């Protein structure tokens, strides 16, 4: 249909011009041609010790790709890992149903291959320090969480200060290796200690 006309649009294919009506915009958005494509689902801000950050309304039927953005995240206990778990039917899976392969690089020397094919979470950061101003930042993409016939894959990249006070970055990913419809994402510390602070934004990546 021709866009940019209020009232009755002309019955011909012509270039867009004029003013878009609300109906035009709604139609274009439904086709993915208008509107932003990173749609905020929920923001969680942590300012005191918290055991876990749970996203339990991920709108999985609307998106097959989710984007998690974590900024200024700080662990309450030194030298710990922020980690990821998934929930199915409202229950977070604590079994060894996860695999990870993450490469880490530290400014104070050395690289490391962090891998496991039978573990109960996916690391998001590794060996993160928690002295003053030692905070981490990063992102993760989640794929096909809602699809009950597919495993749920994650790719991630994080940038932190390590336990020695030096820069450390991590990239890689993991898989929740169950074919189940995931309905929640949990961020927590792998050893059960607390998250001290941070902002976590979960977005859906728009699809048609």
């Amino acid at each position: 249909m021709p866009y940019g006309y209020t009232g009755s649009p002309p019955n011909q294919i012509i270039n867009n011009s004029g003013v878009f009506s609300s109906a035009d915009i709604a139609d274009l958005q439904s086709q993915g041609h208008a509107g932003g494509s990173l749609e905020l689902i929920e923001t969680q801000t942590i300012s005191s010790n918290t055991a876990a950050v749970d996203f339990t309304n991920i709108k999985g039927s609307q998106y097959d790709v989710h984007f998690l953005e974590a900024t200024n995240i700080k662990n309450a206990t030194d030298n710990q890992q922020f980690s990821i778990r998934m929930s199915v039917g409202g229950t977070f899976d604590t079994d060894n149903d996860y695999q990870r392969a993450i490469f880490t690089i530290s400014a104070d020397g050395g690289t490391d291959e962090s891998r496991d094919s039978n573990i109960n979470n996916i690391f998001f950061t590794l060996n993160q320090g928690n002295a003053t101003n030692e905070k981490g930042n990063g992102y993760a993409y989640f794929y096909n969480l809602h699809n009950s016939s597919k495993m749920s894959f994650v790719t991630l990249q994080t940038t932190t200060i390590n336990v020695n006070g030096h820069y450390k970055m991590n990239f890689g990913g993991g898989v929740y290796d169950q074919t189940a419809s995931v309905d929640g994402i949990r961020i927590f510390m792998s050893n059960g200690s607390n998250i001290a602070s941070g902002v976590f934004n979960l977005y859906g990546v728009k699809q048609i």
Partner: protein
Amino acid sequence: MSNLRLINETSTTTGVASLSVTDVFNADFDIYKITFTNTELASLDWVEFRFINSSGSVVTSSEYDEAVLELDSGGSFGEGRETNDTNFSRLIRSQTTEAKGGDVTMFLFNPFSSSSYTFGLVQSFGTITNGFGTKGIFVLTELSSIKGFQIYLNGGSNINKSTIRTYGLRVDS
């Protein structure tokens, strides 16, 4: 409103030898984000990637360089490197069932510009025996205007399923 703009969604649910996405890069954007999801291959294989130029021809010249770290949750990590290759040969190593097929997020820089090389960043995770991902970079060292891309399998078998979404990163001046 975020600055990501969905440009195109291309998918297949039947076996095809290659899947092309055409006429998605233009002067409107310099940076593009592309996701590959719901992929199922006819055989366990590497998915390879080539560009399509402004004439609609697949770029097969020996002007692709790549460096990819292969992350295996069950074994030592590997390095994949190529220079002057005819494709980007390590988009993702994926499986024969949709359940185990992996997913990819890619960023492309300046594909439409004919005065700049086209650079790419790729991050993927899927399965072979265990969880298996990649983190890589690649470049097309050719000063041509690129308008699309194509994926296919190293071994020549079919892509049974895949959904490819292309987004532009809008810059507000």
